[in-house]
């Protein structure tokens, strides 16, 4: 198969997946991953095996996706959320503890547990933002809180990933120097590079698109050659651009690239899944999903109540945070190259977390499809006696009005 033919077939497969899931009323992300699983090397109809085209698309997809996340989920956005979001984010950190504890119990070792904890902690901003939009939940008060917590998680993850990235370098002093060099360059760019960046971003049309593509790819790959995780570098670049006054223009001019990048990324996740070996890791992935979902529901509800949401809104906040995605996969990808983790654990981490992400996205899209009914029902069970009394009064008032 020629590369161009492959590209055409991938585009067709993704289009059909989006069309089919749209007809079925489920999230297109499930469709992209599902078609990847089916048509991948380990799938039922192995049309696509690992090739340069797929490799290129997957890398491009990941970098663009994280660049956009940096653009959207940045420090100014976090500060906008205020104290309520900060508290919700701090309570949400309990999920990191649960994740690390799970890793310890499963015998993954210290480093393995740290990577697993981080992968299980972080909800997927990409998936959740998409589901919230698809399901028309954007105006709910808990959506604002959820997206605020996602910004918190993503920023926490940049710190954690930076730390884990440094750790994976191991004892090599030269690589250590490289990572330090990249971080120093970033700080200098952030501090002094603004006027130059503003001038670059004032371009229009295709000039801007091409410039951004070049920036994203070259900066991330430059970071990679210095030993810094490329995905985190793309995220950090997005954060710098988000402070530009041309942020809106950057967003709109790359909007379709963003959508395609996300589709390709999730398609690639599906490609890496081997259906034949699924039975070995699936039980563990399911167990992780059950435990972390329960922990997420409890912490999400508490965080919602503490930050001033209603009982229903707090349940909704917890439900919204279920899907895991891109960052979890970046983390296990990083773990796969970490020398201090035993190879067996590395492999188990990668396979288990891949399935875990797929299951959580499927669960998430089921939850989002029944969001109103479930948040309403569970909110009813969990509301305070005060709210219960008020609801009864309101009911009585309505009855009285009907009699008139």
């Amino acid at each position: 198969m020629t590369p161009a033919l492959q590209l055409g077939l991938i585009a067709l497969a993704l289009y059909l997946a989006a069309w089919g899931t749209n007809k079925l009323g489920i999230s297109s992300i499930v469709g992209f991953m599902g078609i990847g699983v089916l048509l991948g090397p380990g799938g039922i109809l192995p049309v696509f095996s690992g090739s340069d085209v797929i490799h290129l698309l997957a890398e491009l997809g990941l970098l663009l996706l994280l660049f956009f996340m940096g653009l959207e989920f940045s420090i100014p956005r976090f500060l906008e959320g205020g104290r309520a979001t900060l508290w919700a984010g701090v309570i949400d950190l309990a999920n990191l503890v649960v994740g690390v504890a799970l890793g310890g119990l499963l015998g993954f070792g210290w480093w393995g547990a740290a990577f697993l904890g981080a992968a299980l902690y972080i909800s997927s901003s990409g998936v959740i933002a998409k589901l919230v939009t698809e399901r028309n939940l954007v105006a709910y008060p808990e959506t604002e809180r959820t997206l605020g917590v996602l910004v918190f998680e993503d920023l926490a993850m940049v710190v954690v990933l930076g730390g884990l990235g440094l750790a994976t370098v191991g004892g090599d002093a030269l690589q250590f120097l490289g990572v330090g060099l990249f971080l120093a360059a970033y700080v200098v760019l952030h501090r002094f590079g603004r006027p130059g960046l503003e001038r670059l971003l004032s371009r229009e049309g295709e000039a801007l698109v091409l410039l951004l593509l070049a920036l994203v790819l070259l900066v991330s790959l430059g970071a990679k050659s210095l030993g810094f995780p490329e995905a985190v570098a793309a995220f950090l670049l997005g954060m710098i651009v988000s402070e530009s006054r041309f942020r809106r223009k950057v967003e709109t001019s790359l909007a379709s690239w963003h959508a395609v990048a996300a589709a390709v990324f999730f398609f690639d996740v599906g490609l890496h899944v081997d259906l034949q070996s699924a039975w070995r890791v699936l039980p563990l992935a399911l167990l992780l999903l059950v435990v972390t979902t329960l922990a997420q529901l409890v912490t999400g509800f508490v965080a919602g109540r503490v930050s001033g949401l209603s009982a229903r809104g707090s349940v909704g906040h917890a439900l919204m945070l279920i899907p895991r995605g891109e960052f979890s996969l970046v983390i296990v990808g990083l773990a796969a190259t970490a020398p201090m983790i035993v190879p067996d654990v590395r492999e188990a981490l990668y396979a288990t977390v891949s399935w875990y992400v797929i299951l959580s996205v499927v669960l998430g899209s089921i939850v989002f499809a029944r969001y109103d009914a479930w948040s309403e029902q569970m909110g009813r069970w969990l509301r305070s006696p005060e709210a219960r009394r008020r609801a009864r009064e309101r009911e009585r008032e309505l009855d009285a009005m009907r009699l008139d």
Partner: protein
Amino acid sequence: MTDEEQLAPTVRESTLPGVGKKYVMPLGSGGNVAIVVRPDGERQMFHFLEEEDRPCDVVKLQRDEAQQVANLLGSPMVASPDLDKLELVLGALEIEWVALPEVSDLVGHSLADSRLRRRTGASVVAILRGETAIPNPEIDTVFEAGDTLLLIGSDAQTEAARRLIEGGEADSA
């Protein structure tokens, strides 16, 4: 109008990372309206009832539809001066129905022969004949007794035309 009424209602603006911008406006009638603007220009409009944190209805609008809705919502405020102006313009214009008496000099003559337009300035835009109507009559249309003419022109022009049609010679204008 009191000072209070002149103040625009407050709108709370917030950013939804990865989704767009949200604008919430409390309504005087209770509850509030939230509008979310996505980067691709799509707007979603939500209606929250009083004491509810779940919207009771949502309207999705594409960019052009949102523009149209904005026009419609804004029209009573924006378009009313234009309507007033339109009435002013129409005020100088007279539209008049005149029945053609059997004794009229015009009966049996064509529209061209009558030189109605030349003599009075008014135009015949339609003729009603029994059950039928003749819009924009041709210049060779012959008037018949019992016709009703629809005239358009200024006040003076239609008045002159009426006198001409109803009998008395009245060249003017």
